[in-house]
């Protein structure tokens, strides 16, 4: 029977579009005949803003591209400028970057888990996830001074060394966290309704994922082993041996499992990094530094490796000769790319962000077509889209 199609506007203001995504769907009863994604409601002109600001002025804005995982974009931009200007980053600062980035990945995935399940109709996991996320946010706040817009990285390192006892709090968190994931798994993983809602829904085949340029956990859930941390090593990821979890199915359930495994893996990575950080915890390092006091660059306690980059790069002096660079950072949502082109002044000529959510939003209509109305929310939730990152 041919019936009149119902055109429905999902968003830009809608409880589960994760921001201001607008989907125009043609419904036939509960079934979706056609769907179109419209973006741009949160366009802040991040690339245009860069043209009128020098590198230091632009740095705090970068955090706001993806407000749930600010460290990644910040790191991406920092690596770009460091690469252009030839600034060397001390080992200890790199380790701090790694720890903060991995913590941020966990916190971002936690929020994703909560909201994904909220989209599916389960309310309580959101609160449990936010409780754990609050712990991470508190840890990061103690380090950087803010909860979301950290502005902690600077060109050539990080702004401050860790406070006393910070490493201990990270260690405590990493020890208690796997048990919490077990709790979530108990609640969700085997739940028949959750399985019904996610298994076989929104399947991204391997070819499709590559064709659409999907990256991150979404790609790894489709069976492609690609992780910028392994394949395009940056920071000190080379020093670590870690697994890249992959799943072959490519449906919402696989994406869920990959993200949970990633959280566990990040947790291990942080634990390893804590033990290996040059100089160790700050309270011990301070004592060693005062006892040593040799100030030789090769010294283990007060040399370059453990000294966090304190020297302020003057924004008026930091002029980068004409050159271009592209950096790749594996953010919590996928491959985050920053292209910076310098032109000899203290302002960038062009900054371009390639964000993982942009590609993930592009594939959304393909996945939703032919499914049910309720599947939109499951797929949208599982792709882990953050709209400010899409619109920039």
């Amino acid at each position, binding site marked *: 029977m041919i019936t009149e199609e119902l055109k429905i506007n999902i968003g830009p203001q809608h409880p*589960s579009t994760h921001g201001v995504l607008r989907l125009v769907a043609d419904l036939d009863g509960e079934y979706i005949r056609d769907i179109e994604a419209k973006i741009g409601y949160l366009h802040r002109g991040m690339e245009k803003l860069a043209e009128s600001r020098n590198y230091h002025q632009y740095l705090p804005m970068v955090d706001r591209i993806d407000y749930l995982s600010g460290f990644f974009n910040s790191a991406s931009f920092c690596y770009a400028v460091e690469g252009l200007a030839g600034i060397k980053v001390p080992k200890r600062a790199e380790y701090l970057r790694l720890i903060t980035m991995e913590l941020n990945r966990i916190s971002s995935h936690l929020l994703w888990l909560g909201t994904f399940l909220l989209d599916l*109709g389960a309310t309580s996991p959101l609160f449990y996830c936010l409780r754990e996320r609050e712990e991470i946010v508190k840890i990061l706040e103690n380090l950087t001074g803010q909860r979301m817009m950290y502005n902690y990285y600077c060109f050539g390192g990080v702004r401050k060394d860790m406070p006393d006892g910070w490493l201990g709090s990270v260690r405590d968190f990493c020890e208690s966290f796997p048990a919490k994931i077990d709790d979530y798994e108990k609640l969700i993983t085997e739940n028949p*309704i*959750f399985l*019904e809602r996610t298994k076989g829904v929104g399947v991204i085949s391997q070819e499709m994922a590559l064709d659409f340029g999907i990256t991150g956990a979404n790609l790894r859930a489709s069976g492609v082993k690609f992780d910028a941390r392994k394949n395009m090593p940056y920071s000190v990821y080379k020093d670590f041996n870690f697994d890249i979890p992959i799943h072959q199915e490519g449906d919402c359930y696989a994406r869920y499992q990959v993200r949970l495994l990633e959280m566990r893996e990040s947790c291990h990575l942080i634990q390893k990094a804590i033990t290996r950080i040059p100089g160790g915890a700050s309270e011990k390092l301070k004592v060693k530094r005062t006892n040593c006091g040799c100030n030789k660059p090769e010294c283990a306690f007060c040399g370059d490796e453990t000294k966090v980059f304190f020297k302020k790069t003057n924004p008026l002096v930091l002029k980068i000769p004409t050159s271009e660079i592209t950096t790749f950072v594996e953010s919590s949502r996928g491959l985050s790319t920053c292209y910076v082109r310098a032109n000899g002044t203290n302002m960038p000529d062009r900054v371009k962000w390639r964000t993982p959510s942009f590609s993930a939003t592009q594939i959304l209509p393909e996945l939703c077509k032919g499914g*049910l109305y309720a599947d939109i929310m499951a797929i949208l939730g599982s792709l882990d889209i953050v709209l400010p990152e899409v619109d920039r």
Partner: protein
Amino acid sequence: MYDFYLKIFKYLSLPKLIGVITWPVIPFAAIAALMIVLVLFLVLLERKFLALLTIRKGPNRVGPNGLFQTVADAIKLLFKEDIIPANANKILFTIAPVVFFFPAMVVYGLIPFAHNWVAINASCGLLLMLAISAISILGLLSAGWASNNKYSMLGAMRAVSQAISYELPLVLSALSVVVLSGTMNLNKIAFGQGNIFGWYIFPSFFGFVIFLICTLAELNRVPFDLPEAESELVSGYNTEYSGMKFALFFLAEYAALFVYSALIVTLFLGGYSSPFGGYILGLIPYIKKVVFLEQAFWLMSKTFAIILLIMWIRATLPRLRADQLMSFSWKFLLPLSFLNLLFVALFKYFIG
């Protein structure tokens, strides 16, 4: 009691006719008052209980420990502007909440709160109850249609299809109780069960489970809250409602929650009868007459246990999808309820 009531009218030199007419109204007035208080308490209970499960504190600002929060909410809703969308069908839009509200109110009269303490002691009370409560779906349909909102429309469509498909297993599993008890009078069903060993949950366990699941569906509660799925349909059929009309929807939902829970208790868990057979109050000679208080206590405590179970389920489960909801009902629950009915009939024939 009736004579005493008429005497008051004689004493006040009022016409006897008023007394005769108003006498049947009294239980309804009492039940209406009970219902309003219960619903306000239930809303608070749900918020507090969910807060407890999700490691929050819940409402704790109005009154001691947030006790008057729902009262404040109700007052706020009363004073809010009553918005009718420009293109809505005004008559249906206004009638819909009332149509949704009144069946939930009427069926309170059919619940036996204690032995023979029932406002309408109908001989086919169970049938009447199911029939009346099924009317409320008309309210949802007209609300969704009259709002002239696509989300409301979808919500109403889901609500109707859901209610119709879950009505069948519900009635069939209730039928198993009728088979066991041999009557449709709720008072007799409750009285017939006696102590814990006589409860109909034991011969008709699957009936109980099916009835509970169908109750969740009829009440539009998680995991069957598709008609008002806030992550999909914003708020479903009551998206456009505000003020007192919204409050009526809200109240009716919680009223129905209590009634259905009480119905489950009456059908499967012995109703008002004590699980131990005897009554403590019944042992004491002088206050034997107030044994109904203990019976009401048993009914209430069992009902609240069921309500808490429903809230607990709400905190645990995600939402089903529309097609899964349908197939679950038609392909799984309906055959199972037939099997259950067959089993119960055999049980009755050979053992009971």
